[in-house]
């Protein structure tokens, strides 16, 4: 734990307000190379706003942002283009003759290698979200920005998706900033967890549990209790 890997993403002193509502007020964070950082926070605390700034989708926010050029984004909804077949959605923005091959390879990695010719409307919610993951992965990014990527899925599918993400990360070694409101998800996947509150990072804990992790691991429930307290959900 002494030497943290070289940082892949650095943002400092982010400011953002919608009219009179200040959403981000001096938030700073880093994500190391190959590190998975979970960003927790109450509903409306500004997590999505922060992620949009990192993805370059918000032009008029204050602060310094240093994001690697090769990042991928997965949103809470799949956001696939309904007028493109699945493989073409994944190949969006790819260049070269091997674009389709690469798209199909990415689809195979998320277990949908045979659905390349389907329309997005023909997929289930979980399948569509896997395609969105494939679309983010196909450029082999060094950083993934994930905004509650599994929030809309049922509990079983969510567990499978978490395992899938864990496998993909072990294979590709990308860093990730994972926005989530699910404390268990944060503890299962992340090396560190941050809590966003009042527009800044109010808490940072490292998750020292060995992988692969499980909810029953010793130490898990202690960390969960701590984070829940921090998020304003005290024990009853």
């Amino acid at each position, binding site marked *: 734990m002494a030497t943290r890997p070289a940082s892949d993403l650095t943002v400092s002193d982010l400011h953002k307000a919608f009219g009179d509502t200040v959403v981000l007020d001096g938030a700073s964070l880093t994500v190391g190379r190959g590190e998975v950082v979970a960003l927790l926070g109450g509903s409306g605390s500004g997590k999505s706003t922060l992620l*949009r700034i990192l*993805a*370059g*989708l918000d032009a008029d926010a204050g602060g310094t942002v240093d994001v690697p050029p090769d*990042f*991928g*984004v997965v*949103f809470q*909804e799949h*956001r*696939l*283009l*309904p*007028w*493109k077949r699945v493989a073409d959605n994944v190949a*969006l*923005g790819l260049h070269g003759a091997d674009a389709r091959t690469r798209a199909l390879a990415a689809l195979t990695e998320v277990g949908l290698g045979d659905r390349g010719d389907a*329309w997005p*409307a*023909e997929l289930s919610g979980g399948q569509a979200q896997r395609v969105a993951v494939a*679309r983010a992965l196909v*450029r082999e990014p060094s950083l993934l920005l994930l905004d509650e990527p599994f929030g809309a899925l049922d509990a079983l599918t969510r567990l499978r998706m978490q395992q899938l993400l864990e496998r993909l990360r072990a294979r590709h070694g990308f860093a990730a900033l994972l926005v989530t409101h699910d404390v268990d998800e944060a503890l299962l996947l992340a090396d560190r967890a941050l809590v966003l509150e009042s527009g800044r990072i109010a808490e940072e804990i490292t998750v020292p549990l060995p992988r692969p992790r499980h909810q029953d691991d010793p130490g898990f429930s202690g960390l969960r209790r701590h984070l829940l307290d921090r998020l304003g959900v005290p024990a009853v």
Partner: protein
Amino acid sequence: MTTTVTPAVLKPPTVPRRRTRKRWTRLVSPLVLLVVWEAAARTGVLPPEKVPAPSLVAETGWRLAADGQLTTHLLDSLTRALIGLGIGGSLAVVLAAAAALLRIGDDTIDPPVQMARMLPHLGLVPLLIIWVGIGEELKISLVALGSFFPLYFNTYAGIRDIDQRLVEAARTCGLNQWQLLRHVVLPGALPSLFLGLRLAIGAGWLSLVVGEQVNAQTGIGFLMMEAREFAQTDVVVLGLVIYALLGLISDVLIRFLEKRTLTWRRGLQAT
């Protein structure tokens, strides 16, 4: 508990049969009308100088087609319609795209278009005659004017209605402005564009009929005007039938184009 379950064997085969039956039942009432009309004309219930029998109209159509007159008039009308639609339509799409995509475009283009929309463009005929004369330019200008507005408003609305979240997602895939236009904006606005095109074709024809009644030497509208002067009711009705057929054909063509380009929507309906 399970006794209420009914076997689901009987239903499926009836579905396709009902479809085809429905198709040809739609032809019954026009055919009946035609027969009644023919009978009424033959028996003198309808005065022949007011409403000619359908068979007479068909005969006149055949005669005019055989001596080449009809083709000339039809080709001239079609040419005017196509040129006018091309000019008005492309202007509409370009201006609507500029207004919908750029703030400066919205500020400069949209207000005057919104104001001009309130003018009935056929009321501009006197002014247009002063500006462009009574030749071909007048007819083409009228068609262009008529087709401009429906296409402009539908394109504008179509682009504005595109889900902003899709645009964002596409941008995170590294698409530049031009690629966004091609992969997100154009396909997203296409259904509205087609709707605009349908309305534009209708408005274009309407304008052409009016335009061809001002000092034209050719065209379906001219044919009808001339026939009216000589009280050739059959030719007038023939002109109307031709307009109706042209409307039908253009609709079928657009439907075909829509089917080819909007397959993804059929996928949407299937689920």
